[in-house]
């Protein structure tokens, strides 16, 4: 574990309090926090992949140091949104719980000795939704990677565009897509790892633009949410529908990988592009 990680972990990260017990939602096994963290948040009994926090994810793939960019960009409240809580109050609550300043963490790291841009979304912050800052940070990362001729690795986890920022959130699809397009036109390589869940606007923008798309085992991936589809067609969907394995079968992604093998897979893929970067 890198020495910077503990300070970055939010209150709700199981390993933040090593004495915390977590029950596997899949098999019911009761897991000790420290063991779960050491096993990359994969249940040792049934292989269930827990949703990972961004900084834990970064620590799991980066060789050591991680230089973050864009951290100071924080959201405003463009619509003056308020329902049960005001939008600024929702943001403050999520910052407190997750230890994150927004739904994505971006920066530079080495993976297997290869210098890359690394962006990691976190479902624990506003359901990983893409707001102005999410789009801003992803675009900034891609522009920096383009300038430095580095490959970029993005981990996605998102419920889509963020409702509370309205159209200003939706146009982040355009912003990120445009940044990816420019980045690619210059011959740079984009690798996206889809993690549970990746849906809506993030799936329909930079995620599915990638050169190579890897998904974590059993991750839920789709455009429309399962509930929306079931309501539209008025029937229950099969369990396998919109899983990583389903998408592999349909030809939408390149490979499905278990989390423990993920870093090796990324390193192997980067080796093919390192020579020209």
């Amino acid at each position, binding site marked *: 574990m890198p020495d*910077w990680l503990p*300070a*970055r972990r939010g209150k709700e990260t199981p390993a933040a309090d090593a004495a915390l017990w977590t029950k596997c939602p899949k098999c019911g096994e009761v897991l000790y926090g420290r063991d779960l963290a050491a096993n990359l948040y994969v249940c040792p009994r049934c292989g269930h992949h827990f949703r990972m926090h961004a900084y834990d994810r970064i620590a799991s793939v980066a060789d050591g140091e991680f*230089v*973050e960019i*864009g951290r*100071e*960009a*924080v*959201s*405003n409240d*463009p*619509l003056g949104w*308020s*329902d049960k809580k005001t939008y600024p109050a929702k943001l403050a609550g999520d910052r407190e719980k997750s230890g994150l300043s927004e739904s994505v963490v971006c920066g530079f790291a080495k993976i297997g000795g290869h210098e890359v841009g690394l962006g990691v979304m976190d479902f624990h912050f506003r359901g990983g939704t893409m707001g*102005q*800052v999410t*789009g*801003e940070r992803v675009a*900034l990362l891609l522009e920096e990677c383009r300038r430095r001729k580095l490959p970029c690795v993005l981990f996605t986890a998102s419920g*889509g*565009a963020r*409702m509370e*920022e*309205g*159209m*200003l*959130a*939706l*146009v*982040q*699809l*355009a*912003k990120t*897509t*445009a940044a*990816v*397009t*420019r980045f690619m036109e210059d011959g740079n390589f984009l690798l996206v790892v889809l993690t549970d869940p990746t849906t*809506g*606007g993030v799936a*329909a*923008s930079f*995620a599915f*633009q990638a050169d190579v798309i890897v998904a974590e085992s059993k991750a839920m*991936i*789709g*455009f*429309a*949410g399962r*509930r*929306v*589809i079931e309501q*539209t067609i008025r029937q229950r*969907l099969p369990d396998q*529908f*919109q899983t990583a394995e389903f998408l592999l079968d*349909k*030809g*939408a992604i390149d490979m499905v990988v278990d989390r423990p093998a993920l870093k090796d897979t990324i390193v192997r893929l980067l080796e093919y592009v390192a020579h020209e970067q």
Partner: protein
Amino acid sequence: MSNNIIVEREKGLLHLERRIADLRAASAAQPLDMSDEVAALEQKYREILSELFGTLSPWEKVHMARHPARPTSLDYISHFDRFDELHGDRHYRDDPSIVGGFALLRGRPVMALGQQRGRDTKENLRRNFGMPAPEGYRKTSRLAKLASRLGLPIVTFVDTKGADPGISSEEHAQSEAIATCLATFTAARVPIVATIIGEGGSGGALALAIADRVIMLEHSTYSVASPEGCAAILWSDAGKAEEAAARLKLTSDDLFRFGIVDEIVPEPLGGAHRDPVAVVDRTLDVVDAALTSLSALSPERLAEERYEKYRRMGERRAEGLKSSV
């Protein structure tokens, strides 16, 4: 009963319209001059119209945008000088919820594209209520790429609740189809003018709306999700759609203020369908003027300015700020 609150409100007006027409006919057939009565009824009609539609709430605009008689993409495109529809995604099938093809607008060759809902139940079933499948977005990408290569400006009409949420659409990678469409529009080396003519819902609408100039009809709506979708996502209650409509800031005035929309086309009292030909003509004039001003820019400059336009939207000043952990 219609589930459209604007249609419901128009029912009483229809009665009045019929009476005015009857009175006019009677007046023409007889030597008796009834023009005073006709004028009085017309005056009353205008008063009621103004009372009913003078100011519209966001929720009322949602219903106006979905009005069954509101001009659709083909109503605009059929007023071009010429239109030759092209079909198919070259992979799987033709999606009738998106129409596209070569067209002449005020003498200018363009590529016209639009989401197309049905004007009656039968057509709606065929066109999937204007909700495009991946095949529709792939057709759009194909035609947009063709336009970019041939130097034809792209003119789009946006009118959809959103992309189709169905099994087949997921199986055929709706996300990839939309992402590719967005990428194609951001990189196109020709002028793009998009007009939001009805409902602009979510990524499925944005896929045809990345443009150098975004025009919006006064009572159209454009939002991150449909009000029903937003209410279901945030509050697990689609019944709170009216509240969502108010919060989403989806009207043309709001979006002009945010810089998402560049120009608003006014509508007659009561909505575009009350004088469709005039609205279509006025809109096409605005599109034509936008194309004329954009035609002065080089392909490189166009792509650069479009990139910068979207790059600045919702910018939160992250540049140059770095911290090490």
